[in-house]
């Protein structure tokens, strides 16, 4: 008991001493070692101009970096770009958001017609606001606020303020409006920043010619001139040599083989649409094949993937039969639509191959993953196969699985080669000369790049 009392008294004394010691210690406030960061020097020479070679709705800002960007105090972390926008923008934004909601609700269902009415009212209101939106920019500096339009990291000295061309988009940037800009150099403390002089007004507008594409324009003009020159030359009777294409020369033999065997010819136009150049070239070859087929009175099967392609192909085959003097032999179902599903189309064509066992399969046009599925099935069916495509990834598949393959541009040359018309052969010559020009320019460019003749390589630089 005595021991407990002694311990208690000792603890009490200890506590008293420590409290009195604390009271006696002068608490020195911690010295504020972080000094207030000075605001950075502002950027200078801010300019804003319309962005070149575009459709408008974009302004490019350039400036000279702040002396504290990288050098000096080195405190600039990034630049924040502000554009003056009229207060009306918030109202536009709100109405746009309500309109989008109404459109969504309308998609779900509108049994009472109330949503449609609200949507129409909002549409009118939105159109009215937008018609006054451009004028609102002219009220600077009244009735507006500065709005951040983006940031640029330290070291950068330009920024493109690109808006949408769509009036209904939230970032719509109208053309021919007065825009004012200010750029702030910002430190690691977001509050410590320095603004530049305000620059404006500046307008955005679309250009009538993209000067960044002058090299392409020149190349197109040069090639057009070459084509027209050689076509004219061919028309005057010049003898133009065209190297033989084994794949095309085999077409006649293949049709003959089909006639002898009494089996049909299967012509596949691929998965391209009627707007693909490869499909258009394929139409021409189909016309030649169909004419021969009509002359030899062999059967032709043309299953198509695209309804527009089917319509064009029907017209091509029909004309070929008329040209061959056998219009009555033409059956519209010769060219028929199968499906617009890639592998369902493959299944249908492969089924045709295995049921009809065509003597010849011709694949000309655009092909994708189905190329090998078709060509291998054709090989299994024992058909002679001729293929041609400009899809570079599919060429190896056709080479291994087909007897003859037209590689890349040979597909386009095939129509000229089949027809042997001087006008068409003329364009082939132009292609050959253009290729020669590309090879020469390529070698010259190689030398120029190694010798540092940048003025030569810059001539061919395409911007935007």
């Amino acid at each position, binding site marked *: 008991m005595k021991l407990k009392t002694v311990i208690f008294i000792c603890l009490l004394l200890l506590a008293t001493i420590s409290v009195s010691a604390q009271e006696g210690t002068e608490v020195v406030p911690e010295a504020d070692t972080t000094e207030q960061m000075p605001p950075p020097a502002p950027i200078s020479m801010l300019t804003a101009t319309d962005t070149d070679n575009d459709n408008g709705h974009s302004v490019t800002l350039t400036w000279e970096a702040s002396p504290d960007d990288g050098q000096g105090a080195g405190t600039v972390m990034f630049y924040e770009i502000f554009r003056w926008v009229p207060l009306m923008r918030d109202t536009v934004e709100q109405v746009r958001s309500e309109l989008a909601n109404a459109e969504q609700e309308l998609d779900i269902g509108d049994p009472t017609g109330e949503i449609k009415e609200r949507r129409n009212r909002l549409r009118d209101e939105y159109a009215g606001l937008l018609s006054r939106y451009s004028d609102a920019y002219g009220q600077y500096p009244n009735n507006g606020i500065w709005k951040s339009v983006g940031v640029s990291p330290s070291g950068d000295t330009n920024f493109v303020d690109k808006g949408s061309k769509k009036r209904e988009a939230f970032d719509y940037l109208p053309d021919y409006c007065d825009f004012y800009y200010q750029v702030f150099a910002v430190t690691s403390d977001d509050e410590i920043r320095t603004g530049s002089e305000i620059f404006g007004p500046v307008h955005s507008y679309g250009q009538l010619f993209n000067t960044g*594409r002058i090299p392409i324009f020149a190349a197109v003009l040069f090639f057009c001139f070459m084509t027209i020159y050689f076509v004219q030359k061919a028309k005057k009777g010049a003898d133009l040599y065209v190297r033989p294409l084994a794949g095309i020369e085999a077409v006649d033999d293949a049709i003959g083989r089909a006639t002898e065997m009494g089996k049909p010819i299967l012509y596949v136009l691929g998965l391209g649409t009627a707007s693909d150049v490869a499909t258009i070239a394929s139409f021409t070859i189909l016309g030649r094949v169909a004419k021969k087929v009509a002359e030899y009175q062999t059967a032709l099967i043309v299953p198509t993937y695209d309804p527009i392609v089917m319509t064009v192909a029907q017209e091509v085959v029909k004309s070929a039969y008329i040209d061959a003097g056998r219009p009555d032999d033409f059956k519209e*179902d010769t060219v028929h639509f199968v499906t617009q599903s890639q592998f369902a189309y493959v299944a249908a064509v492969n089924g045709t191959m295995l049921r009809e066992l065509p003597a010849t399969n011709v694949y000309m046009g655009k092909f994708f993953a189905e190329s090998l599925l078709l060509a291998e099935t054709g090989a299994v069916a024992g058909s002679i196969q001729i293929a041609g495509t400009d899809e570079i990834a599919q060429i190896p598949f056709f080479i291994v699985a087909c007897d003859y393959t037209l590689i890349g541009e040979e597909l386009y040359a095939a129509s000229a080669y089949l027809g042997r018309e001087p006008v068409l052969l003329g364009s082939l010559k132009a292609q050959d000369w253009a290729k020669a020009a590309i090879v020469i320019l390529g070698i010259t460019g190689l030398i120029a790049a190694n010798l540092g003749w940048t003025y030569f390589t810059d001539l061919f630089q395409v911007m935007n």
Partner: protein
Amino acid sequence: MKRQIPFALVFIFGAFMIFQYFIPHETSEWVYEFLLDWIIIIGIFALALGIWSLLRVSMDKIKNKKENYVYSYLILFGLFGEIIFGFTAFNGESWGFYIPFVVCALLAIGMVIHTMISTGKRTTFAGLSVLFILLSVLISIFDNSWSFHFSSAEGVQNPMFRSFFDHILIPVLSTMFALLAFFIASAAYRAFRARNLLATLLLVAALIVMMRFNPWVPVIYGDYGAKLSNWLMNVPNLAAQRAIVIGIGLGIVATALKIILGIERGYMGKG
């Protein structure tokens, strides 16, 4: 005149498309997008022609009882079945008389087709088609558990529509795609036979590249093998590909030019 107007249209719009590439102005873009929209519009109308072509070919097979003509019934069932499912949706949990309606509607379509193609018993088929049409109409009027939706997308969520699409079409298409693996093997076997010097070179190059991507071989293949494989892919292979691409590019421009100038007329059925 029948040919001159299309040629004039091709020239005008073709030339516009060339110049449009060099004119970034908004008006030029607007015309460009407007013209592209027309491709979609024409495509929709052409699809009707495509379906008509498919119908005719299938009906012809059934009519003449060509080899495997039974599959044509399957095509027509799939075509009309999905159309019916796509335009109908359930109003609640109950299925009501939905299945009898679908069966009656498909039978009605089948009878109409048979009326069109059959040479005998036409009256019987016509009578049956009227009967099934009447049944379908009656069910659709009195059954409130489902309804038609022609102007909205409710039908896409129809469980029947989704089931046929997800559980039949997708697996079948995937199977077709999977066949590619076996076809690649058989094609590679034929291509890589060392018949002559060039074929042997192809075989060696192919082996080097294939071993590079084999998960077990790199252990013994080493860094040099990987470098050699990369060199083959990035130097000789890429060089040849680029040469082909340049040729294709020029070929496309030349063909487009021939079409615009009316030199190439094969696509109009006049070579």
